[in-house]
């Protein structure tokens, strides 16, 4: 497939763009990458995603798509070399449920713990820990959500481990407790060790610096 027919608009520090990069790599898809300068969004981005005006946006044969989980499912349906979702409808539904849970219930409190102070921050940190513990139950004792290999939920939620640790380091509150969430902790570590996952992770020191800078604004 010609590189020009697949384009990804992203941002180096965005975990949502990262999800799409991982999926494209898994399927062996060649694509043209466009790095967006987020404070100065390009006219192209605004034209491709007028509803949310955000990255990532995948453009395939001039047809744009936004929202990373929607993009992941699209990639899964078009390129079938390495399926992200299982075949069984119930297993697929569970995978969608957990990816949504991670986005709706784990990410916001981690972000709130990062940006708030005092009592609000403590409350957010507590909620993040509780919901991460719940996410652990979705693993059902497996190594990855996808079983022995990476699947949809791993790509959707695996990055949270790195971001939550970084957040914890910056705010001085531990969000991932290896004692109370041993399986989740192991999963985060195993995920980040997978070669193609590691290959695309942004440089940790650059990311930490970037997060620290953002934190100062709060």
């Amino acid at each position, binding site marked *: 497939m010609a590189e020009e027919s697949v384009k990804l608009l992203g941002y180096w520090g965005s975990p949502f763009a990262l999800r799409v990069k991982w999926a494209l790599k898994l399927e062996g898809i060649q694509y043209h990458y466009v790095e967006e300068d987020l404070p100065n969004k390009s006219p192209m981005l605004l034209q491709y995603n007028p*509803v949310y005006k955000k990255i990532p946006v995948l453009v395939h044969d001039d*047809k744009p798509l936004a929202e990373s*989980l*929607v*993009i992941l*499912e*699209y990639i899964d*349906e078009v390129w079938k070399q390495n399926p992200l979702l299982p075949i069984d409808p*119930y297993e697929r*539904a569970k995978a969608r449920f957990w990816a949504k849970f991670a986005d709706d219930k784990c990410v916001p409190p981690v972000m709130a713990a990062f940006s708030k102070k005092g009592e609000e921050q403590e409350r957010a940190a507590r909620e993040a820990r509780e919901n991460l513990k719940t996410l652990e139950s979705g693993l059902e004792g497996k190594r990855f959500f996808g079983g022995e290999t990476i699947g949809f939920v791993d790509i959707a939620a695996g990055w949270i481990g790195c971001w939550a640790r970084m957040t914890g380091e910056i705010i001085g509150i531990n969000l991932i407790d290896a004692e109370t969430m041993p399986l989740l902790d192991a999963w985060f570590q195993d995920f980040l060790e997978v070669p193609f996952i590691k290959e695309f992770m942004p440089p940790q020191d650059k990311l930490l610096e970037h997060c620290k800078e953002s934190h100062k604004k709060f």
Partner: protein
Amino acid sequence: MAEEVLLFGFWGSPFSRRVEMVLKLKGIEYKYIDEDFSNKSPSLLKYNPIHKKVPVFVHNGKHLAESLVILEYIDETWKDHPILPKDPYKIANARFWAKFIDEKYLSAIWKSCTSEGKEREKAVEETSELLQFLENELKEQKYFGGETIGLVDIAANIIGYWLEIFEEAFGVELLRKEKFPKLCNWANEFVSVSAIKENLPPRDKLIAFLRNRFGVGNASK
């Protein structure tokens, strides 16, 4: 093999009604259990310990929560009257709009109804912008799904039926015909489909419920 299909819902909830609409559309027999919010059943809490909410769908012992997840499961399991198209890009587009509706509309509509003064003005403005997106997305089609009801139509049930009821209950005007002619047309078509019509909560009962539960009676326009 006899299928066991259960749905835990709430008569007034657009989310559990979505599931009923699709079950009706596909002609699937199911047992319905209506939940009392203030007194959730042990079964509901057992099947949805994470969110403790309706709808919860149980198929031969396998339980699922989250209405859009349930809708896709139903569509993949019972193939008659599909609610998703075949083309991957069109499927992705449908998922995008369904997700957008879920993330943005209810909270904007709710804020428009329950806030006052400048906050209400702002919320009404935001709701109007959101409605404009859907107005544009309809293009010249009868339904969001094209010639037949699809995932987005069902997800938009909030706008197709509940919105007008919120407007009446809280004395706010959001879906004006002059501004959103296609959306108003769509809403009329939507509620006329028999699988939908049979699954709409009674209007007066819902208005009374909203007014009682949320203490409206003296809300100013």
